[in-house]
Structures are given as C-alpha cells and as structure tokens.
C-alpha cells in the first residue's frame, strides 16, 4: 500500500487519522462544527471492522469510549464546547482510572450555545481545568489539515503511552477548511502496555504508568473512580493513598512535559517572539514569511502539558506576543513561567487574526513594559 493524497477538510482528516491509528470504536453525539468527524467515522468504521455508535448525549459518548477502551480498542469521540462541558465528569473518571481515550474538540464560539458555526479557541483552560479535583492532561492543537491527521495519530499514541485522555483541541477554522493531505499507508503505532502477570493493576512502572488490564483477558481487574490502592481497590479514607495516587497521575504527565513537547522554534534570537497554536499559527507564519528573520515564533502542537522550557530558547526575547481566539487563555499559562512582558492579542467572534492585526500587536510589543498588556484590535 502506498500513501494517498486527497483534498479533505480537517474534520474528515481527523477521522482518517484515527482510522490509520487503529481506532475501531467511535461513540459520539452530533454538534456543529465537529459533526463531520462522526459522519466520516459512521461511513468508514463498518468497512474496517470497527463500530460506530451515536449515543444519546455527550455524557454517554464519553462513557462509551471509556468502556470501549477497557475492552481493548482505541476509541475516540468528537464534540464542541457544549458537548465538551457535558463530558467533564467522565473526563475526570478517565483521568483517574487512567483510561486511554482521544477526545476531539472542534472549538466554536462560546460561552453556552454562543456561535455554533464560528471558530474559537475558548475551551483551552476548560480542557486543562474543567473537571473537579487536581489532574493533568495532554492536549494537541493542529494548524493544518495535514496536522489534523498526524496529530490525531499522535494523540492515540500518547493516550496509550501515558494512559490518559488526550485532547485534540482544534477549531472550526481548521476543522472546516480543506487542504491537500497525505494519508499515510503506515503510521507509527505505540500500543498501550498490557498488564503483566503478577503485576498489580494500579501499580506504576518506572514511568509512573501501570500496565493496562484489558477486560476479558483474565486479569480480573477492578476499576473504580474512587480513590484506590495499587490493587485497584477503593481506599476512600486514606489521605496517604489519595495523595500518592493523585500526585503520581499528575507527575506521570508533568515530568514529561518537556520531553513530549512538540513545538516549532523559529528565529530563537529574535526580540519579539510570537507564541501561537492552532489557526492563529497560520497568520503568524504568514507574517514570518512576509518579514523573514524579523520575529521569533514558538508554535505549540502540544499545548498541555505546557512546554515551559521552550520559552527559554528565546534568549533575547523582549516580549512574547500571543494571538489567541479567546481572551488570552494560554497567555495566562505563559505568564506563570516567565517575567518577560507578554502582549495578549485576543480575538473573538470567529474571524482569524489578520497579518495586519498582528503588526499592530508588534507595535505595542516594541515598547511594552508591564508584565501583561492586552492589544485591542
């Protein structure tokens, strides 16, 4: 089999990436602007021996893919803001039971029903903090149709490697735009590690990750969303077990934040440095293309865990300019890792920042002193 090229939109590319990664179960609930992911899966999964099911709502969709994951499949769902909000409880369950799943959020204008057909990046902090209690997540953000495909594959590998939900935090712009894409005949697959005989189902290995006790394989595991000991049994009144469990689950991801960092670092010597992810990366690249060697650029393909060490690459940075299709969500995270002035460039309502708008932000950045400055476009 050889690679194929096609002309697809981002949502369809995402579905194709999932299939290439071996995803064989998709449970979803339609919502604009993510629906094409589900529709493509509905069309394709039965042809490759997989199962597509439309569930009664997003709570059920998240539940079903967690159930499917314990049955041994690579599983995925796709949604947008309102549905994402409904998944928060079960996302916490997946985190705490260390269940590998992939959740795609094709972001649209919020809060609430908001602007269903307009692009946004307003759910980035929700992705990080939206469920109750302390936990960490992995979230990717593609800025092209090809990356929709490639990062979906990567999402499955990270989910299995870290035994955690992985989020593809994309947006309507990328989801609905069509570009040429290469569909690989072979993608790298890093499967989850099966529980070994004699190993306890919730005892970590050297990476902090327990073996996966696939149901039906004779492991006879008990999996619970209660605080549990290494056997997997409830331990609801031990402070020690709770603290150990939560910290391990956070550390198994955060300790690797710079190892799994997937970023582009452009012009590290620049003084004015853009930081972007997803659709705004396109505008930043346009600017960099139009004005070579003028600005630095940190493009994030993995947003969570935030790759803070990448900031250090920009040794001469006088200001970080951060265009986002929200009120500056990732800028808040950046601020936690640096004292270098930050220029936030929020844009709401669905349109992507234009190159001219970013130039306006550049002007502000040239003289900026305060730790955080917002540019009003």
């Amino acid at each position, binding site marked *: 089999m050889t690679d194929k090229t096609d002309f697809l939109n981002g949502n369809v590319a995402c579905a194709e990436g999932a299939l290439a990664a071996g995803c*064989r*179960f998709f*449970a979803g609930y339609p919502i604009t602007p993510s629906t094409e992911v589900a529709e493509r899966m509905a069309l394709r999964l039965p042809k490759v021996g997989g*199962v597509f*099911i439309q*569930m*009664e*709502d997003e*709570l*059920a*969709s998240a*539940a*079903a*893919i*967690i*159930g*499917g*994951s*314990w*049955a*041994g*499949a690579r*599983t995925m769902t796709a949604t947008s803001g309102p549905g994402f909000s409904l998944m928060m*409880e*079960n996302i916490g*369950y997946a985190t705490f039971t260390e269940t590998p799943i992939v959740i795609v959020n094709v972001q649209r204008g919020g809060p609430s029903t908001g602007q269903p057909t307009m692009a946004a990046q307003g759910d980035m902090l929700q992705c990080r903090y939206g469920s109750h209690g302390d936990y960490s997540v992995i979230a990717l953000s593609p800025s092209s149709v090809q990356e929709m495909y490639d990062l979906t594959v990567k999402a499955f590998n990270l989910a299995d490697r870290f035994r955690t939900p992985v989020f593809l935090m994309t947006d309507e712009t990328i989801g609905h735009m069509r570009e040429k894409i290469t569909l690989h005949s072979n993608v790298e697959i890093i499967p989850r590690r099966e529980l070994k005989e004699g190993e306890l189902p919730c005892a970590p290995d050297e990476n902090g990750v327990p073996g996966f*006790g696939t*149901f*039906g*394989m*004779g*492991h*006879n*595991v*008990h*999996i*619970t*969303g*209660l605080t549990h000991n290494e*056997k997997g*049994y*409830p331990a609801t009144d031990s402070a020690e077990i709770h603290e150990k469990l939560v910290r391990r689950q956070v550390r198994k991801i955060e300790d690797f934040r710079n190892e799994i960092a997937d970023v582009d670092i452009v012009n590290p010597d620049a003084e004015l440095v853009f930081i972007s992810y997803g659709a705004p990366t396109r505008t930043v690249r346009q600017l960099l293309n139009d004005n070579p060697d003028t600005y630095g650029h940190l493009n994030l393909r993995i947003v969570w865990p935030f790759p803070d060490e990448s900031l250090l690459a920009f040794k001469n940075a006088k200001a970080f300019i951060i265009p986002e299709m929200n009120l500056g969500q990732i800028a808040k995270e950046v601020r936690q890792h640096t004292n270098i002035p930050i220029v936030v460039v929020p844009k709401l309502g669905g349109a992507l920042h234009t190159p001219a708008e970013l130039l306006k932000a550049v002007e502000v950045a040239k003289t900026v002193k305060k730790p955080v400055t917002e540019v009003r476009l």
Partner: protein
Amino acid sequence: MNLEDWYRQDRLPHIYCAGCGNGTILNCTLRAVEELDYKKEETTFISGIGCSSRAAGYTSSDSLHTTHGRALAFATGLKLVKPRQHVIVFTGDGDCSAIGGNHFIHACRRNIDITVICMNNNIYGMTGGQGSPCTPYGAISTTTPYGMQEQPFDLCKVAEAAGANYVARWTSFHVKELTEAIRVGLETPGLSFIEVMTQCPTSFGSKNKMRQVTQMLDMFRDNAVLKAKADRDAAKGILPSPEKFVVGQFVRRNNPPLGVEAAK
C-alpha cells in the same frame, strides 16, 4: 467454578449494613452466573455509584465501577467492542432511574445485549436516605420530610415501553425466583431488565416504620402479587391495593438486539 469463586474474597466482608438486601441479590446473580457456567474472562460486571453499585467490587472477574448513573453507557461501549462478553450491570433505583434514566431508556431502546440488575430499595442509601424516583408516594426520606409528593416510576413499565426484550421484577425475599429470572435474562438476547425490590434498613426502613430488617422481608413476602394473579384480578376488575406490587416476568420477546456477536 463454584459460587464462592465468583466473590472477590479479599474484599469480603463487604461494606453493606447489617441486613442490607444487596448482598442477597449479589448471591442470586452469582448463582445464576455459576449455573450458566460462564467463564471469568468472558464475564464483566459494570456498575454506577451507590450502595448497590458497590456490588461490582465484590465479584471476582473484570469489573468497572463507573460514574453515577452512567453504567449502561460505559457498558454499551464495552459490549460493542467485545460482543462476546457477558455484561451484567448492577445499579440502584437512583443510579438507574434518577441520574441514569436516559441511559436506561436508551439501552432498552437499542435492546443491547446486557443484563441489568436494579436493586430498588426505594431510596438513596449511599448518601444517607434521600428520596428517589422510586420512593413511594407519601414515604418519608431526608428530602421528603413531609412525605413524598411525586409519583414513583414503575421501572418495569418504562423498560418495556422503551423496548427491552426481557423485563421481570422480584424481591430480595424471592431468592429462587430471582436467581431463575437472572438466568433467563442472561440467556435472552437483547436487554434484560430485572428489578429487585430490596430492603435498606438503614435509610428506608428506619424512617418508614420498619425498624427491623425482618419486617421489610415480611413486607415483601406479603405485598408481592404474582403477575398471573394480578392479571386474573385485573380481568375480574379487582383493583390492587396500593401497598401491593406485582412480581414476575412482564415481557420476554425477540426484538432485534444490538451488540450480539452474530449481529456484528
């Protein structure tokens, strides 16, 4: 394998209060599983949250103790991926019909090949005795201090209307009949719903004039009317008195199921 092997020995004794009917229902379920000679690696227990839902923690094969109300949605995913698994869901009246009502009716509609055992104690046991959608009209609970003012669900009726292939009701007193019903439910393709009226002495009995566990058992024995008798009475125009309830098999039918190996 014998019955005792189906218990997760290192977790017994369980956390249930003295006289809680959940343990009895667990016995009947595992007896049915044992009678059918299921293998551990093809048997999965799934549950939500509640005292009843803790049952999945005491069975010795793979078990998934999920979030409150969602067990059937988790089970649907698992079953569709591995249709060969026998999937048994433990749930409570609150878990199944309050927060979980939507997954319940949809699992019935899809007629997915899962057996659901709902331990209906008419109350939220785990959280200390609040009313549930199955709390009888007028009954006292911590959130209905002046008596329940809403109508309760007839869970079997809802399951039937929604599409389940097998629907039956028994009580924790009727251990033989219950075991048999569970066995038939497991053997029936499609969704099997078995409602078990059970006693929560701690949170229900104590507030509703049944301080002794055994009073609740007596009540089940005395108030359960066999379906055949209820039908005969109805034909004669005899109305059941309000404290009575019907036990027996309500439906067993052959609508196309979801998630059976062949259908895949």
